[in-house]
Structure formats: structure tokens, C-alpha cells
């Protein structure tokens, strides 16, 4: 008997068909990755497995059988027995997924007692046991901590521990590593891998990241617009996708191990004067005893027509550095010299545009601020800029909500271009976009750099993306640049142990490479 048997599942929210006739099965102990871009319905499928759509207003049809329970028709008791008992779920954001008011051990114990008639003490002991199992050091003491006292990775481990507590037959993981740094992501994926080998539970992993799936599952299911596009063993689907959409998706994924040399670019002339030079920049947050340096003595320079990639995990100070370069933050020490013609492209195009003003007005802002008053000239210039970023020039009077995420980011780029800057700082410009849109925006940026001779500072957490667009790279950690050099130097022959660790943590698209990386990570961890 299959662990999961989904037949012709459809889920509708009001008029939106989120999932449209999906069928698949999963054998006990097997692992299936559900991959798709936003709006593909992949999370909706995961939720349906535990009957989480009940009474949310969604209409669900088809049949869903999980561990012998018919989820759509089961009564409350049966469903509660399934949830957490036979099938457990791990969610995306580990901070908001735990109750902030209670100790982590108590929360796990509470869940354990729902499914087992045991004393509080026994449940608490079980909580400590599973916390220990998922690698929380000093589990007895840490089980008394509340979620905000844990780091992101520890919280996700705790959530996995909660899932483990009742020894379920199936673990459903909905984007379990999306909110985490790449090194932590690798640790969590390794943990899931180990646990699966040890307990023999089945895994359904929902992710937008093909690499994450390649690392962790046997089979892969590609979804788009609520439908299944393709299913097969992960190795064969990723190596030779049959469907056009899968091919498009895979082509758009930036590769860290790109073997093609076409991205080796002449870059800016080595001798040219830098457009911008920052020396020994410092920024300190907090005061009194709790001072912590966000940026601690960073020097960078950017030459015309060159892209400098700044890569780092959360808390590395890369965003603070970017904001100091454009002058949105005043450094506490050091200096920024060079051009003042600097603009910025922000991470989330939805929040970077004022929802109450037309996009044309937003783009025209820098022009008006510089004293341009002639309406016709402004409209003409905005039209030019819209064409420049690949949008229709007649869209001046449209509002941000009428555009998709990628289009909005184009609008933001147009606004940044408006005052004809010599340098644009891009702060995670593609991290909120789907992978195919991301590829389009990246190539637009590259095109602008070449055609307009712009210099770019590209701040991002994604090593593969940075590799794809940059000439030179600076790796940041805890406010300092730990390593910098050309792309070939840093990615080809990293010198700093942290850079090595970062590179080893990047998920590989090829399952055999992924296994290699896994053992590499183990070695690095043991060496450390």
C-alpha cells in the first residue's frame, strides 16, 4: 500500500484554481520533491495532505489518502490522529512556526501528549530526546528556552524534532530551508537525509529550489499553474528533462559550477580610475555594552563598466555596506570617495514602489527633483527609460499592483537609470523573484552594464547568482571582507575556510555531485 495516494486533487480558493487535477503516489520510506515557481500550487498540495484546507473556505475535490487515512472524508478524531501522529509537517519560517510564549520542550511535549497517553514528565523526556537527536547541544537546558532565544537553524531543528516526536511515517516539509542561510540550509538538509536513513520515514519536500530537491529526494515532481508537468527520478529529470517547461526552468537556474567560459568578461580596464572607492568603512549599531559593528573596516572600489559582487549570509553587513555606498546611511568611520551619481535597486520591488503613485511618477521623481519642469520632456524621457528596461513606453499611468514582480523590478531599474547614474548598487535585486524571472532581470542588468558602461555593485546571498553577474567578488562575514578577488580566483580556488564552507554548502543540481558535496561538508565539519 502506498504511503500517499493522491487522485485527481483540485483545490479552489474563491475563483482561483490553485491545484487542478493532481495525482501522484509515494511509497513508504520514499522521498519525493515537489518543485515549482510561486503560484504553481505546490504548497497547496502539501497542505491538502494533512487536511489543512478544512474550513478555510477552500473547496477541495478528489481523493487524498495518507497512511491509510482518507483525509478529505475523515472525521475530526481520525484527522487529528493523522496530523502529527502518522504524518508530520515542517513549515517554512521556523520563527513564526513556534509559539513565542512557551519553552520549546513544552511545545514538543504538548504535541506528544496529543498522540500518547503519557505523563507530563514522560512527554518532557521525549522532547529532550528528540531535541538531542536533531543536534541541539545541551538539550536538557535548551529545551527550556523559548523560540526567540534560538537561532534560525536551531529553530528549524526544533521544529523537525517536534515532527520526529511521534515517529511519523511521513514527513511533509514545506520550503523548510528557504528562510535560512546557505550553510545552515546544508546542515538542515543533511539532517533530514540522516533521519530518513535512520527512521525509514517517507519525505515529501516542497521547494522552489531545484538544487535543494536534487540534494534530498529520489523522485521529483514539477508543477506549474496547479498541474503536474513532469515526474520521474531526480537524476533523469534534472539531467534530461522531457517537458519544455522543465527545460526552461533548469536553464534559468544559475549554476555555481558553470563550466562555460563565456562569462569571463574583460570587465573594466584595470587601469581606469575607480567610479567609487570606499576606504575602511565602519558602521556600529546599538550603544553601551551592546555595541555590535555591522560593518567593520571594509574597503572596496568599483571601476567603470565593472560588476562587483558582494556576497554574504544574513548578518554579514552586506546590506549596510550597500546603503553606505549610496549614502542612505552615514558611516561611523572611513570614507566613500568618487562619484555622487549613485542609485540603488532594492530587494523587494513591491515595497520599493509607492503603491499610491503611478510608476511613471515614481520614475520621473529623480528628473523632477533635478528641476525638470517640462511635462512633455519628462514623459518622453520616462517612455525612453521604460523601453530601455523592456517595458511598454505607454505604461506611464499604470500603478505598481498592475505589474508582476519581475516587471516591477524593471520599473525600479528604470527609476534608478533616470538620473543617468554612473553606478547602481543592487541590493538582492532578484531574491524575491522566481527563477525564470530572475534570469531575465539578471540579463537585463548585464545588458545595461555593457551598453551604458555602468558600474554595478551586486549585493546578494546567492553565490551562484553572484558568480553569474560579477567580475570581481568580495565575500563578507560578520562585517568584514574575508576574501576578495576575481570570480575565477574566489570560486575556482578559494583560500579562506569560510569561503570554502560557503561553496561546499551550495546545493548541486546533479545528485551525484550533491552526494560528493555532502561528504565534503562532513570533512570540513570534522576538520573544524
Amino acid at each position, binding site marked *: 500500500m502506498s504511503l500517499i495516494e493522491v487522485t485527481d486533487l483540485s483545490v479552489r480558493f474563491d475563483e482561483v484554481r490553485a491545484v487542478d487535477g493532481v495525482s501522484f503516489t509515494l511509497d513508504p520510506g520514499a522521498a519525493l520533491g515537489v518543485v515549482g515557481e510561486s503560484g504553481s500550487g505546490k504548497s497547496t498540495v502539501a497542505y491538502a495532505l494533512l487536511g489543512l484546507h478544512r474550513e478555510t473556505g477552500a473547496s477541495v475535490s478528489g481523493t487524498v489518502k495518507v497512511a491509510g487515512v482518507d483525509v478529505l472524508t475523515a472525521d475530526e478524531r481520525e484527522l*487529528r490522529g493523522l496530523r502529527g501522529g502518522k504524518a508530520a509537517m515542517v513549515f517554512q519560517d521556523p520563527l513564526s512556526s513556534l509559539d513565542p510564549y512557551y519553552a520549546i520542550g513544552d511545545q514538543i511535549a504538548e504535541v506528544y501528549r496529543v498522540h500518547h497517553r503519557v505523563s507530563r514528565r514522560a512527554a518532557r523526556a521525549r522532547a529532550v530526546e528528540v531535541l538531542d537527536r536533531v543536534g541541539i547541544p545541551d538539550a536538557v537546558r535548551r529545551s527550556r528556552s523559548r523560540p526567540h532565544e534560538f537561532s534560525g537553524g536551531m529553530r528549524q531543528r526544533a521544529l523537525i524534532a517536534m515532527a520526529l516526536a511521534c515517529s511519523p511515517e511521513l514527513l511533509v516539509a514545506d520550503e523548510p530551508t528557504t528562510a535560512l542561510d546557505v550553510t545552515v540550509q546544508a546542515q538542515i538538509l543533511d539532517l533530514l537525509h540522516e533521519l530518513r536513513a535512520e527512521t525509514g520515514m517517507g519525505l515529501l519536500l516542497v521547494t522552489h529550489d531545484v538544487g535543494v530537491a536534487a540534494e534530498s529526494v529520489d523522485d521529483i515532481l514539477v508543477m506549474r499553474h496547479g498541474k503536474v508537468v513532469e515526474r520521474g527520478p531526480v537524476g533523469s529529470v534534472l539531467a534530461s528533462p522531457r517537458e519544455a517547461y522543465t527545460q526552461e526552468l533548469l536553464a534559468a537556474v544559475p549554476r555555481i559550477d558553470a563550466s562555460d567560459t563565456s562569462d569571463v568578461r574583460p570587465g573594466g580596464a584595470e587601469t581606469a580610475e575607480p567610479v567609487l572607492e570606499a576606504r575602511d568603512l565602519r558602521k556600529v549599531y546599538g550603544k553601551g555594552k551592546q555595541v555590535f559593528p555591522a560593518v567593520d573596516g571594509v574597503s572596496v572600489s568599483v571601476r567603470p563598466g565593472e560588476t562587483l559582487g558582494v556576497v554574504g549570509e544574513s548578518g554579514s553587513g552586506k546590506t549596510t555596506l550597500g546603503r553606505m555606498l549610496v549614502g542612505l546611511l552615514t558611516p561611523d568611520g572611513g570614507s566613500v570617495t568618487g562619484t555622487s551619481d549613485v542609485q540603488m535597486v532594492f530587494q523587494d520591488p513591491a515595497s520599493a*514602489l509607492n503603491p499610491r503613485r503611478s510608476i511613471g511618477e515614481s520614475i520621473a521623481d529623480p528628473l523632477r527633483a533635478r528641476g525638470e519642469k517640462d511635462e512633455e520632456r519628462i514623459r518622453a524621457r520616462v517612455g525612453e527609460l521604460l523601453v530601455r528596461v*523592456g517595458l511598454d513606453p505607454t505604461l506611464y499611468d499604470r500603478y505598481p499592483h498592475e505589474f*508582476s514582480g519581475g516587471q516591477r523590478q524593471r520599473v525600479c531599474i528604470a527609476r534608478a537609470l533616470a538620473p543617468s547614474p554612473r553606478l547602481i548598487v543592487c541590493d538582492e535585486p532578484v531574491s524575491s523573484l522566481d527563477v525564470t524571472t530572475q534570469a531575465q532581470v539578471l540579463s537585463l542588468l548585464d545588458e545595461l552594464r555593457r551598453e551604458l558602461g555602468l558600474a554595478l555593485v551586486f549585493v546578494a546571498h546567492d553565490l551562484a547568482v553572484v558568480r553569474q553577474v560579477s567580475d570581481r567578488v568580495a565575500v563578507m562575514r560578520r562585517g568584514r571582507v574575508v576574501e576578495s578577488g576575481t570570480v575565477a580566483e574566489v570560486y575556482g580556488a578559494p583560500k579562506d575556510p569560510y569561503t570554502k564552507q560557503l561553496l561546499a554548502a551550495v546545493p548541486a543540481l546533479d545528485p551525484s555531485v550533491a552526494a560528493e558535496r555532502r561528504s565534503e561538508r562532513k570533512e570540513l565539519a570534522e576538520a573544524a
Partner: protein
Amino acid sequence: MTQSLALLGTEAASSSEGPAPGTRSFWRRLRAQKAAMAAGSVIALLVLTALAAPLLTALAGQDPNAYHPEAVDSAAGGVPLGSFGGIGAEHWLGVEPGTGRDLFARIVYGARVSLGVALFATLVQLAIGITLGLAAALGGRWTDQIVSRFTDVNVALPLMVLALALLAIVPQSVPRPVLIALVMGLVGWSGVSKLVRAQALALKHADHVEAARLSGWSTWRIARRELLPSLAAPIITYAALMVPSNISVEAALSFLGVGIKPPTPSWGQMITEADTWYQTAPTYLLIPAGLLFVTVLSLTVFGEGVRLALDPRARTRVLRAGKGSAA
């Protein structure tokens, strides 16, 4: 140009951000709420009544300050003659016990005072609150400190207390309704200022505000173009609930005898006087009290409706809270 226009097209992307911002969708969402619309109609009627007070009283052939000793039983201490406080063709809502003044005329003119004072007070509170809130959020650290402490002091002086004290001190020559509205405005702004400060602080470093800063605009222009429009929704929501609260405060001040002074009619003051008459002339209490209740209730319900219409997520939040699956 390698990117083709065709790839992106002009078609509006299907947006997951919810409905468009703008006044049209606001009215649509407001109209969808029956209770709010009913309350809105009541308010409209009250406002019309207040505006047309001279016309209405002329129609009724009554003057709010004319005594009608013939309409009360002076032997019984001034109890209105006739049933239900003297309600009839002559006096539509009966007469005031003791003096025999026409109740309809006094109620209608009282509506003018109640609504007018509450509205004016709200405007004063908004003007002070928005200015100080923005100053605290956008000014330097010291401006913020000073304004925030000043707000704390204002909070520490309960509105009623300071209003009572000030009204007793200011010379009687100042027109009472204007003075009361001013006093209420001067002491009741701390809520708005705290709201505006918090919201502006939260927005100050929003990406679109930072982008405007990079465009080269001045702080003042950014406050006007980027911050205020985004603050409009919370401010309107708050203001919609300030009006009924101000009506209650005005009535309470008059009830305490430090608000509107006779002979200017006011609902609160009528309720005070009715205190001694409720056994012999209950309508004299019930009519102003009932009207006050209906007015405040309608304004509150309408304010709630405005809140839901301005922030569609408020309703979805309730829906998202869901029923869970196990009831």
C-alpha cells in the same frame, strides 16, 4: 536590446497583492457592509437635521428658547401637560418640564452643537496630532524626545480634568461651543500624535521612501508625497472613531455643568436636567439620551466600517484565524 517587448507585453499581471488602492475600491468595500451603510444613513440624516435646524424649527413653528408656560402644569411643579411629555401637533416631541420650551426645537439645535463641537474638536486634534507626530518621527533625536515627553504630559492630564480646569478659568465672554471644541482639541491629540509617530517611524525606512530620498527630494517633500498618503488610511480610521468619542465627551462636559451653558441647547445638558424629572416626565430624559446613544453608536459602527474598507486585510485576518478543523 536583447529583451523583447513581446516577452513582457502590456497585459496587467495577475496580482496577488489584493485589490487596488484607491477611492473607488474603498467605496465598493464600504457599500458592501450593510450595518455601516445603515449607520451612514443615520449620520447623514442627523447632519442634515443639524444643518437645517432653523428651517425645521420654522416648519414646526417653534423657537428653541421661547417659554410656553401654558404647556406645563405649574401646579404640579411644571410637569408637561398631556401624555408623553406633551407630545402632539403643537410640540412634536413635547416640551421641557418647568419652562415649557419646545423639545423638538431644542433637540434639533442641540444636534448642531453636539455634531459641530465634535467635528471641530476632531479637526483640531488631527491638526496638532499629525504635526507633532510627523515632527517626532522625522525630526532629530531631540525633537523626538521633546515631543514624546510633551505627549506623555498631555496623557497624564486626563482630558476631562484639564477641560474642566480650563473652562473654569477662561473668561465667559468667549463663545462656549468654540471654546469647548478648542479645549477638547488641545487636550485630546495625544492618540493621533502617537499613531502618526509610530506609523511614520515604521515607514521612514521603507524602500519606496529611501528611493525617494535617493531621488534627491527634501524631507518635507518626502513627508508630503510618500508618507502622508500612506498614513491617510490609519489616520482616517482613527479619526472616524474620534468623532463619536468627542460627542460623548462634549455631552459629558455639559452633563457636569462645565460645558455648553444655557440657554444654548445641548443634549448632555438636557440629560442632566432630566435627572430630576425622569419620574414625572420620562420622555425628557429618554429623547436626548436615546439620540445621543444612536448618534454615538452609528458613528462607531460607521467608523468600524471605514476601518474594514480601508484595510481589507483586517477582515481577512479574521478569516485567516479560521475555524481550524476541529471545532
